[in-house]
């Protein structure tokens, strides 16, 4: 059942590629139905998931694949996987809605888009580390083409940078994947078997940072974050929504599943240094976002800052910190998709500029009220306004960090304050600049916000509000899984 999220995406991609004479409109429809089917499968899995026995992974399907190396097709889910699957489903649906107007090479766009989604689903449900790695790499290549073909602003440079960073990260992960063979004599790649393997302390001390950084490159860990802003800016809207919304989470999720779960002693040895990098990322990302002239770069750097919270929460090694980190992954996935949707699709596609000083003259609040309203909601949710998902998540991370590293929590708090500043600055400049009586108001009306855009935005707004008001929907899935035997060692009493 679970594995059908992956299969359905690849089937959808194949249909888009091979169906003879598929019109662009039908390609869009195929892609959207594929994404909806994937989401419905995820929902069905959530209902099948038994909250009573959250101590174990569920919905297991296990088949031999490469027996000579102890590799199996082992799909399963715990609460954390399910939360990420839900996020993927939502980001996929809204990403396609926001890509509705792609006119050039429409079919190919959706082929790469669905292939990327299939890879992402695969990472979230793999409990065999080799399989996880395979899906992690499958997700790399479509990104290149999505950005390089349909992107804007230095698209080829951004695409190549994005892909090479990801690939170097996955090379580090591959080293970490092979290392248990040599040093520890492991015979299987199955996560549930590997956790019982006693890895020596010396081994963990070097294997942990290698694999963690490999994954964290994709999560935008400072100072390996530079692919993220350029990549997000160059990408077409639908792809930046997926990149910031889901692909960055692959890194954080992978780091939690593999190095943190398998090498707890290594984690203990490196925790302080990595938490420092996370905090630097929070503050640095926020400060850089504060001075950007390009609207999309503001969002790009804010992603780096927000992902810093995820990594800080992961390092906090307390239940509240970890659950905050996972909630923040979900929340940032939704909000980043929304913000990139507004900036890339609703504003840039209509005004053809992302320069904040040019946008100031355009009076967008009056001319695109829906876009302005959406951005206000997303912006406030992003800066941690109570009632939206960002608040619950960042609060939990801060509480978790406060217990472990009080000074870092204070710095992260400063990061939130700067976050308020850059969001307000961008919001005012782009939408609510004071009317300049001397500037001539552009006469021609901007094209109205289309139905797919509105639907997409409303889905995302509804989700962030729902989770903000009732976070237990997700926390009930996350917290029991954190207390499972697999992840329990991460939480220091």
């Amino acid at each position, binding site marked *: 059942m679970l594995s059908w999220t992956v299969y359905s995406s690849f089937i959808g991609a194949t249909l888009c*590629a091979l169906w003879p004479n598929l019109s662009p409109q039908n390609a869009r429809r195929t892609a959207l139905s594929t994404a909806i089917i994937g989401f419905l499968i995820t929902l069905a899995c959530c209902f099948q998931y038994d909250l009573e026995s959250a101590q174990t992974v569920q919905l297991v399907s296990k088949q031999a*694949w*490469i*027996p*000579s*190396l102890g590799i199996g097709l082992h799909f399963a889910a715990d609460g954390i996987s399910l939360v990420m699957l839900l996020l993927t489903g939502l980001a996929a649906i809204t990403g396609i809605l926001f890509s509705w107007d792609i006119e050039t*090479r429409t079919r*190919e766009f959706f082929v790469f888009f669905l292939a990327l989604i299939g890879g992402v689903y695969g990472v979230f449900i793999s409990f065999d580390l080799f399989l996880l*790695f*395979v899906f992690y*790499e*499958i997700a*790399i*290549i479509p990104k*290149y*083409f999505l950005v*390089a*073909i349909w992107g804007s602003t230095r698209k*080829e440079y951004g695409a*190549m940078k994005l*892909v*090479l960073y990801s*690939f*170097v990260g996955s*090379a580090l992960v*591959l*080293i970490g994947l*092979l*290392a248990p*063979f*040599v040093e520890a004599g492991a015979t299987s790649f199955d996560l549930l078997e590997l956790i019982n393997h006693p890895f020596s302390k010396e081994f963990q001390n070097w294997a942990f940072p290698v694999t963690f950084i490999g994954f964290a490159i994709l999560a935008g860990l400072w100072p390996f974050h530079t692919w993220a802003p350029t990549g997000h800016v160059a990408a077409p809207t639908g792809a930046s929504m997926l990149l910031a919304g889901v692909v960055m989470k692959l890194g954080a999720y992978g780091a939690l599943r593999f190095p943190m779960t398998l090498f707890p002693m290594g984690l203990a040895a490196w925790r302080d240094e990595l938490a420092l990098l996370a905090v630097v990322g929070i503050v640095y990302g926020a400060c850089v976002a504060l001075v950007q002239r390009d609207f999309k770069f503001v969002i790009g750097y804010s992603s780096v800052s927000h992902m810093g919270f995820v990594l800080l929460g992961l390092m906090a090694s307390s239940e509240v910190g970890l659950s905050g980190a996972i909630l923040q992954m979900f929340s940032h996935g939704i909000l980043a998709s929304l913000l990139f949707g507004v900036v890339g699709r609703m504003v840039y596609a209509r005004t053809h500029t992302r320069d904040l000083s040019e946008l100031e003259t355009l009076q967008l609040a009056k001319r695109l009220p829906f876009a302005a309203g959406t951005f206000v909601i997303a912006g406030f949710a992003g800066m941690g306004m109570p009632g939206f998902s960002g608040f619950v998540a960042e609060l939990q991370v801060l509480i978790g960090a406060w217990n472990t590293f009080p000074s870092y929590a204070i710095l992260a708090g400063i990061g939130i304050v700067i976050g308020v500043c850059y969001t307000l600055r961008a919001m005012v400049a782009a939408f609510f600049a004071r009317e300049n009586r001397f500037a001539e108001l552009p006469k021609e009306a901007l094209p109205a916000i289309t139905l797919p855009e509105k639907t997409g935005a409303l889905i995302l707004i509804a989700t962030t509000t729902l989770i903000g008001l009732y976070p237990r929907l997700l926390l009930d899935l996350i917290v029991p899984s954190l207390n499972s035997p697999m992840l329990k060692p991460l939480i220091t009493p």
Partner: protein
Amino acid sequence: MTEFSYSALLRLLVPEMILVISALVILAVDLVWARELPSTKRHTIAFSISLFGGLAAVVSLIMGVTISTEGAKWLIVGGATSSVKVGLIGLTLVSLAISIRSQFTKHLGEWYMIALLALVGMMLMASANNLLLAFVALELVSLSFYTLVAFHRSSKDAMEGALKYFLLGGVSAAFTLFGLSFVYGATHALNFTDIATQLAGSSLSPLLTVGMGAIAIGFGFKIAAVPMHLWAPDAYQTAAPPVGSLIASASKLASFYLFARIWSTALGNLSGSVGLENSDLGWVLILTVLAIGSLIIGNLAAIVQTSLKRLLAYSAVAHAGYVLIGLMANTPDGMASVIYYLLTYGLAVTGTFALISLVEETRGNDQIQSFANFHRCYPVEAFCLLIFLLSLAGIPPLAGFFGKFYLFAAALKSPSTSAAMFWLVVGAIAMSAVSLYYYLKVLKQVYVVDTQSRLQRERSDPTLKIIAILMAVGILALGCFPDLIVGDLLADLQ
């Protein structure tokens, strides 16, 4: 010496004899009867005979004969060797198929005959269990290839490429023979197993060191390992695509297989280790130097190439570096991974040469820039090229990734492995990130560059399209079910 039974030996060589006969039949038919026909017809006839001969050879390989102790002095057959031979036949037939529509030579009969003779040589290389036979087979292959590179008469550089190939190849053959004679001098044996028996428990003598060094230089040339790689870019670029495909795929497989067998069967006791820990100097150290050089120089030089064939040549140098790592494992696992890697590499590289042939015919040259807009004119072929190049770069779930993974796993699992080996693997993984860069540069031309000017429909070639599709399907299938081949190979080798 006991009396030798030629009939026993001939029975072991049935597949090779079938191919020799088909080669002669092709030559005769083409000379006597088909000379006046249009070239498409001549191609079809010659290719059909080759295909028939190849299939018959495969059938006789599968039926198999059990080897007598008498025959084992000269040859080994069956098991992994048969798989390698089937692979060689398949890759050669694909290379021949690439030539069906191409106009690179007027001497069709000769082209098919020499290619089939090269195939026979390569199959003998795979079977050889005796230093002398190995050398004869090697020379048969080399001489055929020198001729084939020069066959590309329409290219004025082909002579230069062929001459360079010939001169360097001659020197390398001398090195090989020199090295083999030293090994004979040290052990008084020509048979691989006898050499191994003689060497058991002995340590490295200066005589053997020189011998092994010279053999490594000779084979380093065949497999295009740094610093013996300089012929490759010129030969690849000037040869016609079918010839290039043959040199890049089948010849690599045969040379590596023979190299691996001399090294691990005959000289296995002198392996040593990468880090020189707890053991004397051995051949692993020689291979380490070759591997490091090939990985670095191959990958870095490929970045700056503007011709796809030259890029493939340098990437072949880099791939030789990866395979050498598997060779160093000196275990059945390592051997299985080497064969698997070269088979999958062969699929990708013959497929790429088929598409190079297409582009050369329709757009005049093999510059990477000529691939602009490829996806629009040839959507299916472009997707196949995507699969080939990503498989070469080692992206899962394509076969090339599993090839690399098996190599690395085998190298790390080997009992003689050490920390230095681990660092070598780490370096190889790092260099594969470099390789993705230049493969993506090609794919950028294929998929991203979208000039509207070239929209006129270009001639499509059904043969090349079918070849590309078959190779791509093979790569996908071997990638999704990698244990299909490796499981059998391992069972054979253990």
